[in-house]
């Protein structure tokens, strides 16, 4: 394995800027690494070697002309397949979009390219981001680099596995109910879900419009802040995008790395622990709380009484929105078309296509959502879930009156074995217990590795008020520094070689 792939994104950018490595060499090293390992990991759905080398050459040429390059120029990236990329397959992990080559770039894709970041390809995911293990991909499961018999989390499991397996220094994920934070936690990475509206949704193949957010999956907190700054900020093409500058995220990450949280008020959410949480996870979380105290923070317990309703509310809102968002896959304009034999009518072709093109979990949620929105049921289901959402936001507001950040384990368990929960949707849904409240409230939350349980990584979730993403980065960077000081190495360094 080339030493280049061991470097984090900030270090790679520095090497390229200093002329110690060319962007092409860096891209080739990562493409080689993918070629050598992806038959076991299956992180990528599509590797764009030509595109990556072309982009890398462009960066090298700009550098040789003496042009000023961005802070991430030449650094390779793994892009989740839910993000639309012009001319490149963008399937969202679904058969129904097989063969579709989008004629446009998502804002995230465009900003990645504009930053000189080199996209290596598109990563695997649960179909339409519906799942917590990447086993719902129509193109086969992804394996956790820590233990190939376990899941890499989901739905952004392709990106988490790619970054944890050193196939890419960082990646883009999307988080609707925890799909960045939970994969980050179970693969020993940093994963941040921005404030809703902080990163443009234009060009994210929609799962649940009021919840979806793109964000970074990285090996360091600083890298996450750098990538967040590259893709975030106002976008007029997304009406829900916040029209205000991002907080200074990189500055916050550098500040946090000095490992001083004196005066910081940290709240432990009582409802996000206890039954259903693995002892090893709770031990890792307790150790992280000890670290926070050691960093100078004041830690208290807070109660968020309605967090217990997050899961049922989420499983009404997200399926409702997805039932509408996924209606456009009808065989008329793009993607799969089944049964068009010149005899069958439109409706039959539509339903045969949707029958063949959607997987079981997608169908389950479309049916759930269609039902929840039906006249006569709307108030009892969708309407009620929106009220719960308001109550959860109020719980957050009350807690943030006394605390600067809230903390919890990111997931109740470490990475579970492949196949363990595929036949038990409720067990699968439980993987998002801790991450759902921030999704429903639209507030930012980060997962940072804080320990190991039986040799598998445990994540600490740090939640902040809306538009205070910088707090997440500052506290996460302090924890990262303290963990490395405690263990003598970063968590990810404990991962066995793939």
């Amino acid at each position, binding site marked *: 394995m080339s030493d280049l792939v061991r470097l984090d994104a900030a270090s790679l950018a520095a090497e390229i800027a200093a002329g110690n490595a060319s962007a092409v060499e860096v891209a080739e090293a990562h493409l080689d690494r993918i070629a050598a390992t992806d038959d076991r990991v299956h992180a990528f759905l599509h590797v764009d070697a030509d595109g990556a080398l072309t982009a890398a050459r462009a960066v090298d040429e700009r550098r040789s002309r003496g042009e000023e390059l961005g802070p991430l120029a030449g650094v390779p990236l793994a892009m989740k397949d839910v*993000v*639309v990329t012009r001319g490149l397959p*963008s399937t*969202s992990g679904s058969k129904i*979009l097989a063969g*579709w080559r*989008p*004629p*446009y770039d*998502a804002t995230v894709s465009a900003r990645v390219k504009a930053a000189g970041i080199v996209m290596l390809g598109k990563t695997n995911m649960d179909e339409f981001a519906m799942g917590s293990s990447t086993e719902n991909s129509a193109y086969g499961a992804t394996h956790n680099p820590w233990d190939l018999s376990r899941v890499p989390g989901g739905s952004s499991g392709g990106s988490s596995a790619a970054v944890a397996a050193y196939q890419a220094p960082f990646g883009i994920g999307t988080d609707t109910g925890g799909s960045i934070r939970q994969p980050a936690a179970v693969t020993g990475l940093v994963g941040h879900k921005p404030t809703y509206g902080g990163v443009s*949704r*234009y*060009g*994210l*193949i*929609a799962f*649940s*419009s*009021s919840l979806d957010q793109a964000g970074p999956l990285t090996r360091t907190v600083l890298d996450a802040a750098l990538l967040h700054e590259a893709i975030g900020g106002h976008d*007029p*093409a*997304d*009406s*829900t995008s916040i029209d205000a500058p991002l907080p200074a995220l990189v500055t916050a990450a550098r500040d946090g790395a000095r490992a001083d949280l004196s005066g910081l008020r940290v709240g432990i959410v009582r409802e996000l622990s206890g039954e259903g949480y693995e002892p090893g996870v709770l031990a890792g979380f307790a150790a992280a709380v000890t670290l926070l105290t050691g960093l100078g923070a004041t830690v208290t317990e807070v109660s968020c009484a309605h967090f217990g309703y997050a899961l049922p509310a989420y499983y009404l809102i997200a399926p*409702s*929105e997805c*039932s*509408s968002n996924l*209606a*456009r*896959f*009808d065989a*008329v*304009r*793009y993607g799969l078309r089944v049964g068009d034999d010149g005899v069958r009518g*439109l*409706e039959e072709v*539509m339903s045969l296509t949707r029958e063949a093109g959607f997987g079981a979990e997608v169908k389950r949620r479309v049916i759930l959502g*269609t039902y929840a*929105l*039906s*006249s006569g049921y*709307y108030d009892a289901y*969708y309407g009620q879930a929106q009220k719960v959402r308001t109550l959860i936001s109020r719980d957050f507001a009350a807690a943030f009156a006394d605390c600067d950040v809230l903390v919890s384990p990111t997931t109740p368990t470490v990475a579970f074995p492949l196949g363990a929960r595929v036949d038990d949707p409720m067990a699968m849904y439980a993987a998002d217990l801790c991450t759902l409240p921030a999704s429903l409230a639209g507030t930012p939350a980060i997962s940072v590795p804080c320990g190991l349980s039986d040799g598998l990584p445990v994540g600490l979730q740090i939640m902040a008020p809306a538009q205070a993403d910088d707090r997440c980065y500052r506290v996460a960077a302090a924890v990262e520094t303290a963990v490395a000081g405690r263990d003598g190495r970063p968590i990810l360094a404990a991962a066995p070689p793939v």
Partner: protein
Amino acid sequence: MTLAAPSYDDVLARYAPVIGLETHVELGTASKMFCGCPTEFGAEPNTQVCPVCLGLPGALPVANAAAIEATIRIGLALHCSIASWCRFARKNYFYPDMPKNFQISQYDEPLCTDGWVDVLLSGDTYRIEIERVHLEEDTGKSLHVGGATGRIHGATHSLVDYNRAGIPLVEIVTKPVTGTGARAPEVARAYVTELRDILRALGVSDVRMEQGSLRCDVNTSLSPLDSPVWGTRTETKNVNSLRSVERAVRSEILRQSTVLDGGGRITQETRHFHENTGQSTPGRSKEEATDYRYFPEPDLVPLAPAEEWIGQLRGTLPELPSARRARLQEAWGMSAPEMAAANAGALDLIEATVAAGAPPEDARKWWLGELSRRANEAGEELAALAVTPTQVAELVRLVASGAINDKLARQALDGVLAGEGDPGAVVEARGLAVVSDSGALTVAVDAAIAAAPEVAEKIRAGKVAAAGALVGAVMKATRGQADAQRVRDLILERLT
């Protein structure tokens, strides 16, 4: 033996109709409702599209501020309340001309509510109450190929043009209109006409029914005169002209009365109006109606028009057609029926003709008389005639100066309409000037007297009124190109 269908008057002596109108107006904004695509009518299919209006995965809508502004102005012109906070909603149903398989519309939070508009029908005023005015996006257009009628049944395949998909569409819904009795069809037509004139005055749409930029669905129900409850209503779609609005209501009243007289029940359904037969056929029945699963559109932020902005928009409202009619009626000294006969288009033309120098009564006479007649014959709008207000003013001037008479003026108009140039040029080219050369006229007058000695005798005997016959003969001989007054003077000069 078959019973003769009851007459319309007989039906209305026994039943009371209730009507309601849902009007869709395509706004004339430069770009579509939720993307930057142009909105021009008649472009090559699928050339005015982008990821947003094609509903491509990942694309997101951004609301067009100009469309929101236009909708608020429509609401204000219709005396509506403007919501201080409202949302778009998704209306979910599968149809291939709808790229996302949902339409972004408004549901229980329309932008404008509770307004009214007065319509004038030969002196009587009917107040039509407006339930709501909301904003939504238009669908694409399906073309069904291979079938006999262009409808989906029997077609071998369908083509879809998405140029229209996403064009801003305003829906204006009336409350049920009662108490119109036999005049229900006329009231319906007068309302749509008034609405069209208001929208035109606002400049928010080109309101062309034949191009579909103004579309109308008509609800009709019938109940026995003494019944306290209204009958079951039907909704007639595909009503594509003002005349059809009237015809659709009338034919539906007759159809429903026949069903009711026969002891039948009216089915709540959508009916399809046929322009050629003036009849409608049943479409989708409401019992099998789709559940649209409305919910607030999560991709858009709520609309919250500030009070101050609404006030500014109120200030931009133009003079509305009713106020304008009152002003012009006063200024031009027109009668109420004359005024009622003039729609906003005609008033525009008359006003422009007056501005070009013609006296109001002449301008009015030309546009509402001769020119209206010709427009009707051609089945065209008055404004579509190939004559400008300036040309009409020139015609008026030529007549007033005595250069031509009314008959010659109509011939000059023929030339103008045929594209032969301005009236003066046509008069010249066609040789239409009044024969004023005394020599030529004297010859014609003498010939007429010689040809009718008995008439000449009467005139000589003092019956001056008999001169009319001789004047007619001279006019005929000069093919109308003489000044009739001058001819009369010449005849009397010779015989008295």
